[in-house]
């Protein structure tokens, strides 16, 4: 979202399910933020975003979200990204079901 100096992940929503997805280092779309590629160089982040958008197809509304390095992979910076990464707070639906959190 923000174009600040923080590290980035490429993210969007899956065309069929609508679920939040992230771009991994191998170019695959993954469901967990921890498995996303954390891109610290802004120029490379922009390049990855353009590649992802050019792919079209399976992912909708692709953008760069701020993230930071955590012990288990990228972590959200803004609370909106934290909710996208986790799912709604009133039911254990979405990613929380899959993860059996």
């Amino acid at each position, binding site marked *: 979202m923000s174009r600040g100096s923080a590290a980035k992940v490429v993210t969007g*929503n899956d065309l069929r*399910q609508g679920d939040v997805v992230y771009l991994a280092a191998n170019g695959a779309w993954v469901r967990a933020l921890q498995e996303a590629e954390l891109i610290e160089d802004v120029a490379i982040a922009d390049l990855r975003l353009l590649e992802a958008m050019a792919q079209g197809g399976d992912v909708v*509304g692709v953008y760069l979200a701020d993230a930071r390095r955590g012990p288990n992979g990228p972590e959200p910076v803004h609370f*909106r990204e934290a909710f996208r990464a986790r*799912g709604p707070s009133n039911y254990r*639906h979405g990613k929380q079901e899959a993860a059996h959190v």
Partner: protein
Amino acid sequence: MYDYTDFDEAFVRGRVAQFRAQVARRLDGSLSEDEFRPFRLMNGVYLQLHAYMLRVAIPYGTLSARQMRALADIADRWDKGYGHFTTRQNIQFNWPKLGDIPDILGALADVGMHAIQTSGNTIRNVTADHFAAAAADEIEDPRPVAELIRQWSTDHPEFQFLPRKFKIAITGSPNDRAVTRAHDIGLRMVRAKGLPGDRGGL
């Protein structure tokens, strides 16, 4: 209760078939998201944070038991076993898959329901006093006028691309339970002299 005429039925069925083809073209890649977005919004389909959301119109907040059962069946079959009733008397399903939505719209059409004009810069579902035709203080049932406006505004060619969304509420009671004063147009029925049978006027 008001039941759809053959005209309403044919119109809604036509829209379901049209949207089914649009979804198929989106899924096979022949439509881009930019091309598809206006089509999905015309049919009440939003892309939210975690999933698609389908907003179904409940005209003036009135439902038959049969329609409520159809909503329950949709929640079980295509969503996560629940629905969310909104502050504009509609219902939203929070977890439909894009490929399932044409079938959901078909199931809605089976009971005279749809998701048309629940999104976009159009005249949205006309809301009404939820105690209509029952309230002790009521002058007249406001829902026939709401239904007349629904028929007039549905697919009205001049008003499909308004500057912004447009919301109309109507009450037939002096005690306003329909928040008419906080709508783009609020209609209040009042007693008017000179109308046959002391009918309410607007």
